[in-house]
């Protein structure tokens, strides 16, 4: 669904620690999910995606986990770096949304040096 919150949840982590950003999605029939990273003043940047027939996918330093039973998506970032500080959005796609991407509310990640 559409994000309406003005206060994004914030995750603060120490540089070098692992980060886990969570997302609860809306539609049990959604078949495709994406994580985007958005730095201040920039457009969203693709990080990683996953289809509903998978429950885990790994990229470089990132892992996405999908739990369809509870409609939960998470993004794990290994060895978090200051450059990872940004807002992270999950997005889902499904026929009920006309096959368009619907973005979640976003989470702010702050990395402390």
């Amino acid at each position, binding site marked *: 669904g*559409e*994000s*309406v*919150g*003005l*206060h*994004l949840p914030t995750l603060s982590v120490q540089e070098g620690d692992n980060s886990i950003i969570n997302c609860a999605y809306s539609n049990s029939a959604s078949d*495709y999910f*994406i994580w*985007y990273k958005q730095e201040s*003043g*920039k*457009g*969203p*940047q*693709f990080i990683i*995606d996953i289809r509903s027939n998978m429950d885990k996918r790994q990229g470089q330093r990132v892992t996405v986990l999908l739990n369809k039973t509870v409609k939960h998506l998470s993004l794990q970032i290994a060895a978090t770096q200051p450059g990872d500080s940004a807002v992270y*959005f999950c997005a889902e*796609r499904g026929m009920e949304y006309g*096959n*368009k*991407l619907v*973005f*979640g*509310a*976003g989470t702010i990640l702050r990395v402390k040096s």
Partner: protein
Amino acid sequence: DAMVIQNPRYQVTQFGKPVTLSCSQTLNHNVMYWYQQKSSQAPKLLFHYYDKDFNNEADTPDNFQSRRPNTSFCFLDIRSPGLGDAAMYLCATSRDPQGHEQYFGPGTRLTVT
């Protein structure tokens, strides 16, 4: 590098004065999207073009129009900007209309005075 380009990056317009934002892409993607993003919120889809087919979101105000003269370019026209239209406007492209990975431009920050 192939990319999505938005001009200008910052635009100031007066209340009620028409303004046009532009987007171009070198990805040769079939679909181009316009999103509105307000502070601390997720991007909100305004409309998209699949080739020359225009697809408006049901809740997009009539004040917002779009043109796509060719594959590479897409314009967002705001006929009579109000103070509430101040936002970041993001252009994105994708290869197909099923909303798979979308590539975002850097955005245009619109200020209405």
